[in-house]
């Protein structure tokens, strides 16, 4: 165990935090403050725990996604304030400034969902870039942590799955921490990519779960008794009613999912032959 921790501290770990800053946070002012302070503290903790650790934070709200840290328009060197590590106060300052910038530019919200998936895509390309810049001799041990507060509309399923499959291919675990209600979409993502999924009931408890569950790196996690992942719902929604189905009919041409047998595929306009397995009585078959 000593050897792994030694090699980890040499290699460090790149953590990309995807932070949901949907305006619904602002409905309870104290909550927003606790939320952002928690995340900042967690970011500091990650950077302080090893000199080789690296960090990126991408925020997403209902209208855009945006890199909070690193910010390439800032120069890195700053003066020490109150005897704090320069890097940490620098992170705090940049986060604060960029969040403010992001809040000012966004307009009134109509969507209940944050554009997490956009931020996830940017995180993947960021990790890929760092990986290629570092060359082959160095392992960067990247992982992504998604912190989500907003509710989920499920309209972007395909994009989410695209991101998850890419992360799986890159062997990049995506951890999911949701606050409030369960999110099946993120649960699937954690399951596909080999990350952790955990639901936090309220913002007050966020700090504790971040530290206990999402702080340890992949090697240490194997030795921890983590909360069980539970079962993942892998059912698909049918294209006609958008309801989850146990059994469905799939178009052989475009794989559209229908909860009932239909004569014509609405996605690819394919006419279906009649020798398909039909449960309907033969009388009805003629009418079709």
């Amino acid at each position, binding site marked *: 165990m000593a050897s792994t921790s030694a090699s980890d501290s040499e290699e460090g770990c790149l953590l990309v935090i995807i932070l949901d800053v949907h305006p619904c946070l602002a409905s309870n002012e104290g909550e927003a403050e606790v939320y952002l302070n928690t995340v900042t503290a967690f970011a500091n903790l990650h950077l302080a725990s090893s000199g080789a650790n690296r960090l990126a934070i991408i925020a*997403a709200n*209902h*209208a*855009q*996604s945006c890199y909070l840290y690193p910010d*390439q328009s800032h120069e890195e060197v700053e003066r020490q304030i109150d005897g704090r590590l320069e890097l940490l106060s620098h992170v705090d300052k940049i986060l604060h400034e960029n969040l403010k910038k992001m809040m000012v530019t966004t307009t009134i919200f109509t*969507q209940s969902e944050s*554009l997490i*998936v*956009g*931020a996830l*895509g*940017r995180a*993947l*390309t*960021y990790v*890929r*870039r760092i990986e*290629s810049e570092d060359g082959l001799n160095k392992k960067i041990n990247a992982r992504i942590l998604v912190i989500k507060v907003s509710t989920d509309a499920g*309209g*972007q*399923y*395909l*994009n989410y*799955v*695209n*991101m*998850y*499959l*890419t992360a799986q*291919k890159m062997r990049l675990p995506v951890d999911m921490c949701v606050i409030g209600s369960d999110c099946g979409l993120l649960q*699937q993502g954690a399951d*596909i990519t080999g990350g952790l999924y955990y639901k936090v009931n309220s913002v007050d408890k966020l700090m504790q779960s971040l530290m206990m569950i999402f702080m340890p790196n992949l090697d240490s996690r194997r030795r921890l008794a983590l909360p069980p992942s539970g*079962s*993942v*719902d*892998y*059912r*698909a929604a049918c*294209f006609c009613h958008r309801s989850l189905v*146990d*059994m*469905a*009919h*799939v*178009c*052989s*041409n*475009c*794989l559209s*999912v*229908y909860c009932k047998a239909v004569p014509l*595929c609405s996605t*690819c306009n*394919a006419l*279906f*032959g009649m*020798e*398909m*397995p039909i449960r309907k009585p033969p009388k009805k078959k003629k009418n079709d």
Partner: protein
Amino acid sequence: MMQPDVEAMDEDPKEYRWESGYEKTWEAIKEDESGFLEPSITEMIMRAKRRRLLEREASVRLGIMRHLYVIVDMSQAMNEQDLKPTRHLCCLSILNDFIPEFHEQNPISQLGLIITQNKTAKKYSNLSNNPQRHLETVKKLKELSCRGEPSIQNSLEVALASLKHLPPHTSREVLILYAALTTCDPGEIEATLTKVKEANIRVSVVGLAAEIRICKTITKETEGTFVVCLNDVHLKELIMEHLEPPPASKKIDHTLIKVGFPHQINTDAKPALCMCHLEDLPSLNTEGYYCPQCSAKYCDLPAECKVCGLMLVTAPHLARSYRHLFPLQHFTEILLSQSSSKSCYSCYKMFKEIYADKNVFQCPKCNQIFCFDCDIFLHDSVHSCPGCVSNPVISQNYGNVE
């Protein structure tokens, strides 16, 4: 789909590669003003990478449900050492990569392996969607010695016998890895070819040695492709091209296929054996996926239920195939000086005044600027544009289309 060096051959079917004019490949590399060769080479590499993406055209109907037989020549000719260590081992190690990738990219497709040697053909693994079984077969084949002559006719007959009984909505394909320059057939191969054509089977050949007329005829008649490899890297590229589903043949029928989405946990489940490993006597447990129709248990998906015949998949499996059908639009190449952006939208790389950053790429939908590496990465593996999905207007419309 073709590599540049075989393109000429495809445009003019009469001309064989060795008959075509002498190419002066070195003349394409030019020095720039300061006498450097590197910019020219960088550009050539970038062009080649992008061309491969641009050639991948979608929107045509694809044969998503593929049934593919890989026919591997295991004749004496496979003992040649022009591919390292031998053609035989080189091919099998590529197949080792190809098989899992095939199942990952084509989740509801099936694969089978046929070997031809000693003038005969033998099926080594049946059509199935279990990559593990095929990989074990490949392992076994590594021990097998390469002997005698191959037979195209016999191997096509073996493939035909099992492919022709498949339902009409499937895409039937054969991929031949062929090293010999001859084929030893028991009868008239044209007769087999007619049958193959009638059964709507698409035959593609990857040659390891040289162009052979019979392979060319077969592939032309069945609308497949015929390519010959230059070296091991090229061979891998050529074989990997068959990961993408081919355009659907016009004769394919469309049907609705009944599928089940199994539950991962059954609340009142008793410990049970999983149906996929019955022979190995697995330990009893409650973990696994339960068929929604007959509650048989499976440890891995996708699978075809052995009890009720229902195809069992999960939503991500289906979504994996959607990317072939709803591909990401090509980005337009623009000069860095024309764009206002200082960094790549996606990976946040600052554009510098170096040659590699001269051109940047713009998504036609969301107008965000991407660097070259992101362009390739997004089109090659992600298949979603982070700019579009970060844009509430576009992403909402996009969601409605599907």
